[in-house]
């Protein structure tokens, strides 16, 4: 008599032709199959099939890049859902915030999640940069990936900043006014750049539309592109680099 455990159901499912047409490797726990998991999958094959055991240690990366990446994914997911409810126009943008709070099921939760993930991403990215620096992981051959990282930091800040305007409340309006007034001070190009960014001389409906397009299309695309390069390069540069190893003094040699 066959027992109908969850495990056996999954096992049978994974042996069907349909399943095997998607995931080609078998179900046996062999190292061959474990390799196939990684290199037959578009998304997983940014990984090598084997990794140095040391790199799995917490103190190697503190998982900070991973936290920033997780935030980015969560932000895309919650952001797309928010887009279903949001109109980038005055005063509807603000009303949509109220709708999210009082009308939409779990609307406030959605908005909260998007906001806290954004703050965490900025924070984690900064800490990630610090950990890379103090592990000297910016050194050859990783110089270029560090520069990609700096671009990612700037894009992250810009994403956060353009998103800040979208609720169109006092906080948003004046936060962005203060910031763009600073940009105005840049010699020669300042005024022009500000005009281009805001679509006018003050933060207005045009600015809201421009920030919306930047926030929902231009910057996320830039982020995902640069992120792909960044994570691909981590592998191409030889995997993550932990705390500097080569001990300097003799007494430190293990």
């Amino acid at each position, binding site marked *: 008599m066959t027992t109908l455990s969850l495990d056996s159901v999954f096992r049978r499912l994974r042996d069907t032709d349909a399943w095997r047409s998607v995931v080609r490797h078998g179900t046996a726990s062999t190292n061959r199959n474990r*390799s196939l998991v990684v290199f037959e999958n578009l998304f*997983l094959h940014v*990984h090598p099939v*084997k*990794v140095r*055991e*040391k790199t799995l240690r917490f103190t190697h990366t503190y998982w900070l890049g*991973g*936290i920033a990446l*997780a*935030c980015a994914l*969560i932000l895309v997911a919650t952001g797309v859902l928010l887009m279903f409810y949001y109109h980038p126009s*005055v005063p509807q943008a*603000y009303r949509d915030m*109220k709708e999210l709070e009082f009308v939409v099921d779990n609307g*406030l*939760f959605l*908005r*909260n*999640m*998007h906001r*806290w993930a954004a*703050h*965490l991403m*900025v924070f984690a990215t900064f800490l990630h*940069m*610090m950990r890379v*620096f*103090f592990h*000297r992981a*910016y050194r*050859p051959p*990783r*110089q270029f990936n*560090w*520069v990609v990282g*700096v671009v990612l930091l700037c894009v992250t*800040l810009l994403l956060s900043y353009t998103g800040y305007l979208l*609720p*169109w*409340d*006092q*906080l*948003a*309006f*004046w*936060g*962005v006014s*203060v*910031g763009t*007034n*600073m*940009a*105005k*001070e*840049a*010699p020669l190009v300042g005024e022009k750049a500000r005009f281009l960014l805001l679509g006018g001389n*003050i*933060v207005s409906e045009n600015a809201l539309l421009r920030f919306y397009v930047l926030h929902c299309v231009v910057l996320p695309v830039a982020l995902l592109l640069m992120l792909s390069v960044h994570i691909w390069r981590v592998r191409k540069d030889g995997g993550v680099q932990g705390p500097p190893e080569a001990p*300097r003094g003799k007494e430190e040699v293990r």
Partner: protein
Amino acid sequence: MSTLPPIELVEGVDPVATPRRIALVRPDRRPAVRTTDEKYVMTFPNLILREVILFQLVVIGLALAAILFDAPLEGIANPLETPNPAKAPWYFLGLQELLHYFPPVVAGVLMPALVVIALVVIPYARINQTAGPLWEGAGPQRPLTLAAAGGAVVALFAAFRCWPIAVPTAGVLLAMFAARGGAGAGRVRRALTKVTLPEWIMVWFAIVATILTVIGTFFRGPGWSFVWPWTRAVAF
């Protein structure tokens, strides 16, 4: 074997700056591609599972935060009613705090531009390739140079009455000198002796950036006057 091109050695390259390895392969031996005694493990499940768990922890943590704390929403934007103080989001409040001490071109354009340029340049600045600690092999003039350069920075910021930068800079400078001859001293000072110059600079930057951001976020009220954090609410 005889068809191999002759070995060419590049001369005049600084070996410290660009280390190159030369392998001499004896014809009777097959070259080993790479041998290492480092332990390797399968990416699946070792790394992939950890990544999945990390992702789940982040989702759970953020979901808890989203249940407990609501995102702020004030009244509808009104260009005619300027809040006092009008603040940028927290990650720009360090810059806004600088605005209090320096002309807008300096605080809003020059300083952030310098920070970004400095960050990009880090991996290409070929200083201290051997990662030697600050005082390692230091001649007699290094303390003088450091004191002069550090003192100039402190004096510059003090001249603008920018104490949130001048004071921590002086503090870091003191720590640098405490690290000198700290070899026989207590744990903290011994640890300080290992810090390299680039690390000192980054520590300094991180401390200053944190202090400015905290002051701008929690200690600034109407007219950018100094207030205690418990006297007013902070919105993120």
